[in-house]
């Protein structure tokens, strides 16, 4: 017996042994319960399915994991558990001649590995405690690194906002003068000329609205440096989408595009700044249109109750939401070229554009994200698995 060497630990461990071989299981159980009475909580599972259920249900400190189970084999077993429960301490229990595999698991989420038949109750005990300690430190380290990265990102963002603020006030004066010229010209034409062509007033109205929108964009750019108050009203999102679509009809007509609206019936009204959200939708739609030569652009709206871990919201925006909250989703799917992998981290940066040659200035997504941010929502952008890209606006109900 090795009892005399047993380390006396203060808190009992909660251990899950995942092992389908009854002999191996008996060995481990006896080692765990024989050396110390500290194992007040010991669970066993013989399949990965049961293992996952147990981890889901009980607080487990450490898992002793056999890699070859009836329903999962090899390193995939480790991957499955590690991916689903990132913060869980895992010690792999490998076959007698699988030392190399054991070593390999250390790079893939395991804290340590045991080789069957080559450990004693004493080493098992020590391995488990050290694994837990190491995992705790690793988690803390990972968290700290992430915090540093986030802080860096925020600094960079703040710096860019600063530059944008300076540029925007300069641009405001230069661009608003020609815009004002257009506005008064249009107003004059609108009120004074009688023309038979029924498109005439429609065209003028569109030019006028586009001018206003351009002015709003400039105003919004100025706003981001001072974060102006939103004009919040209970709004039907479908009206906003339809308005946005009518504003960019001319862009749609240039191509062979089918716009598919998949709107949730009787969607509850949401408190938003209509004009700004309209601008977000316009920007996202324009991106979708520019990326798609021909095919389909689908706009979908739906409400959902957010999950408890908020996994559907990107990390950076989770602070805006509370678990279990109702949220409005609006997704825009295109069937275009998608976002090149090397660009995906940069698309939200001001003045980043893949359409510089075609007149893009790179403020669309930047402005959109800022608007969504001051609405305390989230803007998600990703490539579809088959074709094209998807943008999702998530707005919380309050």
């Amino acid at each position: 017996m090795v009892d005399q060497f047993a380390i006396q630990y203060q808190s009992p461990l909660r251990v899950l042994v995942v092992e389908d071989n009854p002999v191996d299981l008996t060995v481990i159980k006896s080692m765990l319960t024989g050396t110390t009475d500290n194992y007040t909580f010991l669970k066993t599972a013989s399949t990965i399915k049961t293992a996952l259920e147990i981890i889901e249900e009980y607080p487990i400190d450490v898992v002793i994991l056999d890699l070859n189970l009836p329903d999962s084999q090899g390193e995939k077993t480790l991957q499955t558990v590690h991916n689903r429960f990132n913060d869980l301490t895992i010690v792999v229990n490998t076959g007698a001649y699988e030392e190399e595999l054991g070593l390999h698991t250390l790079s893939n989420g395991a804290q340590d590995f045991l080789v069957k038949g080559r450990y004693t109750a004493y080493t098992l005990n020590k391995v488990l405690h050290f694994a837990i300690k190491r995992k705790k430190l690793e988690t803390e380290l990972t968290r700290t690194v992430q915090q540093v990265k986030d802080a860096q990102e925020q600094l960079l963002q703040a710096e860019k906002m600063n530059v944008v603020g300076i540029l925007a006030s300069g641009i405001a004066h230069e661009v608003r003068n020609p815009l004002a010229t257009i506005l008064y010209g249009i107003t004059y034409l609108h009120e004074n000329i009688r023309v038979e062509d029924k498109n005439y007033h429609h065209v003028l109205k569109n030019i006028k609205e586009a001018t206003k929108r351009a002015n709003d964009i400039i105003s919004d750019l100025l706003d981001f440096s001072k974060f102006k108050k939103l004009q919040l009203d209970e709004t039907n999102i479908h009206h906003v989408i339809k308005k946005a679509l009518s504003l960019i009809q001319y862009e749609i007509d240039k191509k062979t595009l089918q716009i598919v609206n998949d709107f949730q019936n009787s969607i509850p009204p949401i408190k938003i700044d209509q004009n700004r959200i309209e601008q977000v939708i316009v920007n996202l739609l324009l991106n979708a249109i520019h990326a798609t030569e021909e095919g389909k652009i689908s706009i979908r709206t739906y409400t959902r109750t957010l999950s408890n871990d908020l996994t559907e919201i990107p990390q950076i925006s989770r602070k805006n939401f509370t678990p279990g909250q109702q949220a409005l989703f609006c997704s825009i799917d295109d069937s275009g070229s998608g976002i090149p992998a090397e660009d995906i981290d940069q698309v939200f940066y001001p003045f980043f554009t893949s359409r510089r040659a075609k007149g893009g200035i790179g403020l669309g997504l930047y402005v959109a994200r800022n608007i969504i941010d001051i609405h305390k929502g989230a803007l998600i952008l990703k490539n579809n698995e088959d074709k094209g890209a998807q943008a999702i606006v998530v707005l919380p109900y309050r």
Partner: protein
Amino acid sequence: MKKKILLIDDEAAFTSMLKLFLESTGEYNVAVENNPHRAVNAAEIHTPHLILLDVIMPELEGSDVADRIRQHPNLNKTPIIFLTATIREDEMQESQGVIADQQFIAKLSNTDFLIDSIEKKIALTHS
């Protein structure tokens, strides 16, 4: 009788559009001056009921032009409304465009608001 307005702004395209718009209401005769250095001279010639004055112009700022007009014995009663591209409509809503006793109007204002402000200012001065 139509009211006389003098419009002083270096942007010729803008002044010609605003003139067109204001005159189309049938209420105003609009004279335009695109060179701020000649602003006082233009005001002497036209004796307007009201002056619309751009704030940011090269060489000579709107505020300097306003000073010269207000120091002029025959023009110092003429009301001035400043036009500016650096503020926008909703920023002026609370103060109705009055900042430090001066009347400002965003260049991209609602056209009704512009007319309304002009009318009020003229009525106030000539009552």
